């Protein structure tokens, strides 16, 4: 029984005081204490078992390394590989941790050594039963498990699974869709036609991954690159421009095409074109880019144009830009500095006779010139 005193105090509350007391005493506190004990136990157990697993891994690391090296670099027939793996499995019963550890090792070897036999790696993957694991993962409802399976296929080079991946290209889950497209490009032949009709936005990090895959495949520039340049998907256009730069395929980027691309509403596309002109040293694009400078609204792109002129600019550009310097007194300082730097690099004596009407502007100009001339700042 709850003491009378308690009843009196708690009568102030609308909830019956006895109910609160008994709720705390017989439900809430025991439940919390149970959770506390469970968490402490799990914490200690997971740490202890984790340390133990690390010890096991450490102990057999050398054995696994030499076993995998032997399998990958010897000319064993498929049957011999199967037998050796079965022997290994008998000697070291594989738990989930060890399985994951070995699979990661195989992927690591495949990723880091160029001269590996893809067929042998695939056989090892299958005979260890890792394909079963990947299949289970891909059937799992969690997107992260599916992505892990994509990662296995991609890194092992399991091309037969490309059909399974295509269904995820229209997934509503952005991360899953992104992982699927990366895996598909990696597993596809060298045509990369999966990108032809891809309608979703590709993030900058995926862009980097896609470009890296294409470079690593050592293929020629994709034949459908001109279609990509005309794609309605800006991400595909950006990838196309980057590939043209990487493969130095200037002929795929005509002046007409540049003019069209510079009219894009997306400032990132415009910036990519400006960078391409710079990287490909396209002197013939000088007029186009100068004309574009006047209509460009994005400050960073304007600065980029001037930086490009540092590579392909001529003395004619100096006249236009110096007029701009005088006319537009409130020009952004970053842009102004870039223009002064360009002119100064093109013609070191130009500013000897160049004066603003306001003295403070002249002082500012001198500081910009000093910055431009400093060998440690450029």
């Amino acid at each position, binding site marked *: 029984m*709850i003491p009378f005193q308690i009843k009196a105090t708690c009568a102030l509350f609308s909830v019956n005081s006895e109910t609160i007391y008994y709720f705390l*005493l017989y439900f*809430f*506190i025991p439940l919390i204490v149970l959770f*506390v004990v469970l968490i*402490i136990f799990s914490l200690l157990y997971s740490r202890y078992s984790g340390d133990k697993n690390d010890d096991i891994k450490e102990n057999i690391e050398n054995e696994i390394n030499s076993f995998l090296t032997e399998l990958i670099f010897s000319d064993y027939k498929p049957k011999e590989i199967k037998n050796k793996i079965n022997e290994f499995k008998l000697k070291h019963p594989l738990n989930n941790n060890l399985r994951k550890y070995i699979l990661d090792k195989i992927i690591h070897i495949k990723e880091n050594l160029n001269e590996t036999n893809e067929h042998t790696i695939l056989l090892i993957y299958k005979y260890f039963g890792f394909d079963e694991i990947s299949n289970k993962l891909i059937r799992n409802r969690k997107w992260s498990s599916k992505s892990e399976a994509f990662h296995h296929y991609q890194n092992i080079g399991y091309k037969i699974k490309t059909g399974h991946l295509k269904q995820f290209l229209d997934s509503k889950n952005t991360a899953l869709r992104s992982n699927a497209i990366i895996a598909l490009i990696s597993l596809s032949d060298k045509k990369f036609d999966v990108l032809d009709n891809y309608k979703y936005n590709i993030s900058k990090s995926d862009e980097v991954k896609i470009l890296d895959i294409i470079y690593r495949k050592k293929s020629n520039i994709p034949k459908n690159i001109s279609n990509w340049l005309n794609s309605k998907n800006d991400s595909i256009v950006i990838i196309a421009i980057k590939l043209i730069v990487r493969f130095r395929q200037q002929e795929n980027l005509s002046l007409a095409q540049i003019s069209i691309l510079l009219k894009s509403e997306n400032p990132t596309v415009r910036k990519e074109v400006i960078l391409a002109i710079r990287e490909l040293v396209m002197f013939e694009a000088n007029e186009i880019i100068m004309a574009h400078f006047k209509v460009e609204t994005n400050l960073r792109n304007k600065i980029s144009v001037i930086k490009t002129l540092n590579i392909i600019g001529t003395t004619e550009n100096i006249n236009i830009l110096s007029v701009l310097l005088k006319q537009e007194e409130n020009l952004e300082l970053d842009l102004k500095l870039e223009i002064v730097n360009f002119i100064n690099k093109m013609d070191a004596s130009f500013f000897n006779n160049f004066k603003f009407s306001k003295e403070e502007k002249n002082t500012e100009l001198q500081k910009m010139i*000093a910055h431009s001339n400093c060998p440690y700042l450029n």
Partner: protein
Amino acid sequence: MIIKSNNALGVSIVAPAFNEGLTIISNVKSLLSQEYPKFEVVIINDGSTDDTLEKLISEFDLVKVDFFYIEKIKTEPVKGHYRSTNPIYNKLLVVDKVNGKSKADASNAGINSTKYSLFICTDVDCILRRDTIAMLVKPFLESDKKVIAAGAALRISNSCTFKEGMLYESHYPNNFFARFQELEYIRSFIFGRMAWSKLNGLLLVSGGLGIFDKDTVNAVGGYWNKSLGEDLELITRMRMYMHEQKKDFEIKYIPESLCWTQVPDDKKVFIRQRVRWARGLIQTLVLHRKLFFNPKYKKTGLIVFPYYVFCELIVPVLEAIGLVVLLLNIYFFGINIPFLLAVSFAVYSFYVLITLSSIFLDQMIHKQYSNLKEVIQLILMVFIEPIIYHPLNVYASLKGYTHFLLQKEKKWGEMSRKGFKTAN
């Protein structure tokens, strides 16, 4: 892959230094050893009265250069910029300025001197993981929305050992105060920040480590140099700006330990730091009170800001009032001991459960400590923390609020650097 890419986004690391002569060289070398293709390190010597600048000049072969300084954010005068004549250190820029009596002012001068569109703000005594830039830049590369800032987990370096400017072994701190702060950091970063990040409701990216979109920071005028919680205040203003511009945005938290920092290990410095934090909190919430339940600021005004008011600002006050009421009750009316014990134990055990859950998640994700013994020590501390450490925090918070209400002059104080343990 991003680390190797030619298409990486450029990032500037901004690190203010004030009287850091003891550790400045190793810390700058540590910052310079980041594995990332396109970055610069901007160190701001904020009018140090020791030999910080001299040491930098001599170690890195610095010379004064004619840097064209664009003061987009107003700061105390900049005396000069220094670059190295040694190509090995061509990523280093040192800004020498007049002391502005705040980290905010120094950071602003650094931001004005950066050349890339993203910058990381950190303390010069922080040790960063070698892939910190690559990790922090990821949300900016992956998100469909505009990311304006991102942060990551900070850990306590007091008992860790470092080798060549990098973390070598992570240990649970030996010091009494540092131990409790470790618990607090884990709880805050694992439970608090991760959850708010999921809701895109982060209002705080720690001053110890955060990456920011420079254009947005410039648009809001940079750090406010009169703020005592400049990190919280900046993010609040950035969120307000984005809402006012009706632009979609994200602030991300990366669940990785990327930064190790020294925390106060004596009571005096600890209380001083917490008083400043509390004062910074109330200052920011009062300054931006128009956000409170203002639908114009959407999630920030309707959820995040009220949360900070009710759960961060008011809680210490409620705890103090609760204690006073309890004492008055005992004195005037007598007390129902069984009921009091039941309620107190329920609250205590719930507190312990939350902290333990954070530690559990932390161990699952980071497996931070070197051995099982340290994990056991950490667990034991969980049970003492609510009784010993938490009241100190409440005291510091109330003191901070009082200082704010009485408009006491702000004092930064100095935290003496002890250097790091280095492994052979």
